[in-house]
């Protein structure tokens, strides 16, 4: 195992870097989109609610692989993009639907009196949302959000299907050249843990700190 690690160190590190990069970018995009669509779902406007609902249901109910393939195979015919970009977009949109559902639940669990108090106090809807409601909503949904983040990192292995050169892709390459599949995939798993474990502990720390 040590042998594989040392001989393919740069491949592992490269894959690890891509996985980390794609995860961070997808996390940022999916948080922005997810929070945005969560707000659109609770906004007092039926049409906007419907648009948000459709978006969420589409990306929540189609397999990640299908979403990603759509960007890699179909969309690339109109807009040039490599596997890494297509995969990261697929991952972002897919995850954003789950984050939207999570954040929406958080917003709805904040006491309605908070918005009324803020509006009566002179704040606009958006000020109340940003300063009063969302901070309370996020605090409530830190544990399920943590799950979504961890799923996102693991799901980034979708990049392997679209030549995204991520950790999983490198693992496949190494395994097929060395034939040492067991050791290779164990190492790949360990590299994923290097991202997911600290993430998991950080979310727990946040949960306790803000409780």
């Amino acid at each position, binding site marked *: 195992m040590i042998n594989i690690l040392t001989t393919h160190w740069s491949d592992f590190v490269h894959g690890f870097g891509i996985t980390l990069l794609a995860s961070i970018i997808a996390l940022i995009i999916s948080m922005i989109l997810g929070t945005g669509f969560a707000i659109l779902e609770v906004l007092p406007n039926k049409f906007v609610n419907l648009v948000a609902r459709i978006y969420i249901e589409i990306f929540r109910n189609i397999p990640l692989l299908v979403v990603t393939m759509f960007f890699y195979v179909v969309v690339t015919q109109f807009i040039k993009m490599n596997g890494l970009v297509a995969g990261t977009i697929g991952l972002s949109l897919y995850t954003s639907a789950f984050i939207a559902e999570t954040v929406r639940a958080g917003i709805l669990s904040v*006491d309605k009196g908070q918005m*009324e*108090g803020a*509006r009566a*106090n*002179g704040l606009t809807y958006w000020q109340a949302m940003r300063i009063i409601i969302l901070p309370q909503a996020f605090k409530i949904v830190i544990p399920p959000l943590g799950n979504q983040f961890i799923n996102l990192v693991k799901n980034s292995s979708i990049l392997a299907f679209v030549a995204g050169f991520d950790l999983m892709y490198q693992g496949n390459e190494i395994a097929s050249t060395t034939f040492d599949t067991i050791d290779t995939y164990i190492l790949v798993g360990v590299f994923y843990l290097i991202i997911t474990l600290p993430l998991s502990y950080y979310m727990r720390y946040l949960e306790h700190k803000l409780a």
Partner: protein
Amino acid sequence: MAMIEFKNVEKYYGDFHALKNINLEIEEGKTVVLIGPSGSGKSTLIRTINGLEQIQAGDLTVYGENIAKKKSDMNILRKNVGMVFQHFNLYANKTVLENIMLAPRIVLKRDEKENREIAEKLLEMVGLSDKGNSYPDMLSGGQEQRVAIARSLAMKPKVLLFDEPTSALDPEMIGDVLEVMKKIARDSDMTMVVVTHEMGFAKQVADQVIFMAEGAIIEKSPAKEFFENPKEERAKQFLSQVLNH
């Protein structure tokens, strides 16, 4: 000029007729107490004054602005009209001082130093100077409500609305909150509209009492007259019920 004026106001929740032909003038600086049985529309009426509920017909003028018009700006209206709720509605994620200072800072753009001075003075006024850095969930209900009053006052509103401010409080907490409200009624030129079941408070500080039932104003009289000599049968009945409790 009346500070608040209802003219033939109608309010519906779907098919339900919640306010029926409301006509009412409230003069600047006066304290008006709104009473009536549960479900009679007191909350609905008071909430139309700051636009938390929209009306479907009639005119409602607050501080010279007809807020029944589609285009009227609720955010400007709410700078002039404060509200204190039954369940306080303090910002759970902000300290007591931040609760008071937030809206003046972002809505009125009040200078930070002045903002803090005003907030601290108000906390002193409601007897909670030592609670500035506490969070709402560390306070008792009575303390929360006094902070809520301070938060409303910090905006220096023309009108202050109270919707059953003591109904969610333990009996021993009610006195402190009523004291603060009496102080405001006596010492300031604020126009106050108060929904309450505290008849003692009404007798002491109300200029006018309005009795509602089933979405309509049944009787409006000067406070003394209302308590000593109510005109309408339903008001008499209601009074005998609440006073004999």
